[in-house]
């Protein structure tokens, strides 16, 4: 990192200084891995997946995993100016000198930053241009379920839950270096052998082992030598037995969330048809209250955090949520620690839970009805009724909340003007409920509404649907702004241009990789930050693909067409997704398989006798 006096010239220098409590510094490890987060420290340090894998790999004595984040532009410029490579935090090792450099793919707009980090770290950006001795570049996370846009740059993708996969990867890497000698002395042949050996691990995709063929206007990867027919995503079955970081590095600077995290469950089977996580992470895996209580106590002992956040896609869905809360509260009692439940359902049970844990009320109670009419909520399979929302909102106001946050999407498949008007109606009804419930305090009512463009994601029932055109979204925005005139309501809209590029990348094939590289070369960096995002730059970059971003994002794909991401088997079958798509078009809902019956989503191929949740024993 930067020499001392130069840190005086960059913003928030403390994010570059390392030495946090619990950071693992192993200068003499045999294998050195950089875990890179393609965004700044304050964002990346909150990423639980990275913290989990940091813990898994660092529990091997011989292995050092070190963190690396994207430097803020002022710091990146200093590095360039001084000719210094981007390095890891823990030991200041340049990325080019690490054995493995891993990235997590959380958000498509971070992809140019990933390329920038490789470049700043002294690693050739294109996989094909790497020398034998260059680090092996891997990537995982939800974005890896459509690896094709990054295929030209990544040596190996790791698909699915990382805990066990990483263990196997480390063991295989050590075996490979026993055979082939240390990486720094590898030639191209040794590198190929190493990649082939690592690609044998279940869940690992080696894009260079696939040839792409254009079918129905899309480049579809087909296995060549060393390529597997399907890459089956990894699944950690037993969360209680899975490793969990109870002494993660404690950041010196304030991060976005800045609190301890306890993962109480992974996955969701509610089946919202737009939701990538709800399809990718199946079935649900729950941690037991006893384990969580122990982890909570350790987390506070080791970090000193004053807030613990219970993490799950949907916290109240944990079948023992009340026991979980009781056990965790008991474990940290008297230590000035508050609990947070960031993900809630739209129901009074959730409000009740939040009230019980005395969740700080200033932040507001969040509900995500997503669509304005029952018809459209059935299409997207958001099993929430207007009554659910209004009773939940009423319960929140009665419990003392003055602020409610609502999340909606526009541009959803089959959406009409009536559905958009329905959003305004629903907001008005929540406002009226609030005023009635708050009585004399009604003047302090606040409803913050966040509206995003629907983004079709691979491996969801809506993967075949196009994103609505910008003009449509703009019209809907104006209509909502006209319709919602209540002073207590604050409407905010996500940047539609950012959503457009996000969708174009997430539905792209290998050609989109050319555009990502062109955008990076033209200066795209930290594009998830609206102040740095430039849609004009992306339009120009996308010319390389022969298609405008609108064509990538907006194209409707035939149900029987092969998809660039078909090579990845997330666990849920394409037949199930297609069935869900067809039910959506008919406005039919699919209930949660945990409460209803199995819908044969495909998860039972890996979890025989699947009932939607592991373990499937009822709570005491």
């Amino acid at each position: 990192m930067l020499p001392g006096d130069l840190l005086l010239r960059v913003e928030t220098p403390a994010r570059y200084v390392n030495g946090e409590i619990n950071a693992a510094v192993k200068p003499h490890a045999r294998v050195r891995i950089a875990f890179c987060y393609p965004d700044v420290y304050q964002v990346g340090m909150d990423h639980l997946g990275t913290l989990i894998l940091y813990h898994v790999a660092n529990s091997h004595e011989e292995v050092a995993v070190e963190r690396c984040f994207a430097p803020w532009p002022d710091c990146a410029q200093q590095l360039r100016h001084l000719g210094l490579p981007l390095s890891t935090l823990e030991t200041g090792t340049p990325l080019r000198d690490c054995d493995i450099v891993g990235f997590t793919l959380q958000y498509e707009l971070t992809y140019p930053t990933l390329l920038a980090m490789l470049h700043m770290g002294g690693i050739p950006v294109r996989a094909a241009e790497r020398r034998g001795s260059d680090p092996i570049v891997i990537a995982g996370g939800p974005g890896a379920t459509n690896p094709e846009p990054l295929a030209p740059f990544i040596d190996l993708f790791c698909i699915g839950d990382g805990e066990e996969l990483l263990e196997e990867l480390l063991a295989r890497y050590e075996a490979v270096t026993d055979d082939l000698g240390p990486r720094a002395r590898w030639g191209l042949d040794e590198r190929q052998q190493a990649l082939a050996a690592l690609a044998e691990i279940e869940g690992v995709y080696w894009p260079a082992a696939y040839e792409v063929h254009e079918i129905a206007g899309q480049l579809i990867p087909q296995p060549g030598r060393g390529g597997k027919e399907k890459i089956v995503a990894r699944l950690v079955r037993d969360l209680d037995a899975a490793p969990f970081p109870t002494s993660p590095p404690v950041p010196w600077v304030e991060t976005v969330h800045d609190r301890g995290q306890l993962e109480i469950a992974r996955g969701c089977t509610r089946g919202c048809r737009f939701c990538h996580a709800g399809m990718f992470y199946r079935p649900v895996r729950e941690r037991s209250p006893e384990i969580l209580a122990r982890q909570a106590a350790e987390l506070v002992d080791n970090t000193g955090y004053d807030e613990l956040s219970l993490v799950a896609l949907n916290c109240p869905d944990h079948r023992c949520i009340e026991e979980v809360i009781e056990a965790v509260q008991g474990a940290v009692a008297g230590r000035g620690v508050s609990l947070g439940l960031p993900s809630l359902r739209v129901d009074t049970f959730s409000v009740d839970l939040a009230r019980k844990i005395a969740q700080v009320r200033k932040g507001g109670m969040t509900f995500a009805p997503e669509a304005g009419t029952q018809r459209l909520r059935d299409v997207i399979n958001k099993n929430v009724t207007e009554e659910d929302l209004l009773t939940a909102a009423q319960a929140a106001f009665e419990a003392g909340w003055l602020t409610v946050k609502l999340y909606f999407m526009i541009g959803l498949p089959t959406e009409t003007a009536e559905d958009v008007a329905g959003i305004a109606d629903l907001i008005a009804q929540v406002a009226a409920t609030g005023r009635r419930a708050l009585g004399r305090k009604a003047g302090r009512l606040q409803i913050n509404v966040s509206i995003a463009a629907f983004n079709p994601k691979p491996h969801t029932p809506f993967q075949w649907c196009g994103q609505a055109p910008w003009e449509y979204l703009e019209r809907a925005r104006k209509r909502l702004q006209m319709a919602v005139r209540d002073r207590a309501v604050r409407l905010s809209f996500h940047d539609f241009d950012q959503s457009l590029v996000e969708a174009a990348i997430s539905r792209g094939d290998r050609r989109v990789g050319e555009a990502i590289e062109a955008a990076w070369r033209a200066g795209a960096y930290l594009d998830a930050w609206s102040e740095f995002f430039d849609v004009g730059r992306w339009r120009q970059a996308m010319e390389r693909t022969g298609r405008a971003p609108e064509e990538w994002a907006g194209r409707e794909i035939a149900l029987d067409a092969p998809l660039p991401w078909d090579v990845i088997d997330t666990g849920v079958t394409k037949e199930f997704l297609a069935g869900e798509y067809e039910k959506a078009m008919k406005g039919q809902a699919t209930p949660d398989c945990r409460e209803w019956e199995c819908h044969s989503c495909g998860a039972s191929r890996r979890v025989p006798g699947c009932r939607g949740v592991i373990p499937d024993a009822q709570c005491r």
Partner: protein
Amino acid sequence: MNEAVRWRAVITYRKTGRLRYLSHLDVTRAMERALRRAAVRVAYTQGYNQRMRLSFGPPLPVGAEGLRELCVAVLEERTAAAEIVERLRHQLPQELGCVETTVEPDDRQSPLKHLRWANWRIVVVSDPPVPPEQICGAVGLLGRQATGGTPRLEGEENDASNRILRAEAVVNGEEVEILATIGVAEDNYLSPDKLLRAVEARLQRPIALRWTRAVRVGFER
């Protein structure tokens, strides 16, 4: 002594080395977390959002070091100072380590009250470079102790002089080191940056000074 009297720990700590880049808020958070890890029984505020009862001395700028910074923690129960020192030793890195701790009744006046002056050692460089003696000369004209013949300055710079108790500069090889006692109270606060602006104003040439090292050595009342 009255049983109801609370006790407090006056923790003197340093902020040095690479941790000098922490902001004041970063330090307060780090100290609170260290106390919680160390299981020192600090009292909490009442109410919905309970906070540890901690107060800190005047903020130290990002990048500046401090050798005797102050944190006062109201205790839930009387705890031996040595025990607090020992527990914190395992929870704070050397660069943010505890220098000493005393435990005293909380009904006395807080040691943070009436801190008026801080002693600083500030290493400066100039752009463009000027002979160090000129900087020393300009520094000598600052502060309340500077005697007659000092040209009076207008506005802010003159105000700065009232916030400087003593200032002198010494040449150390290529470097100039300023030793200054400047205000830290609400009504006389002066940052090292503002001190340098005052020196620049005295130089009567367009010269930019910046500090490469700034150490707050301690406080005066």
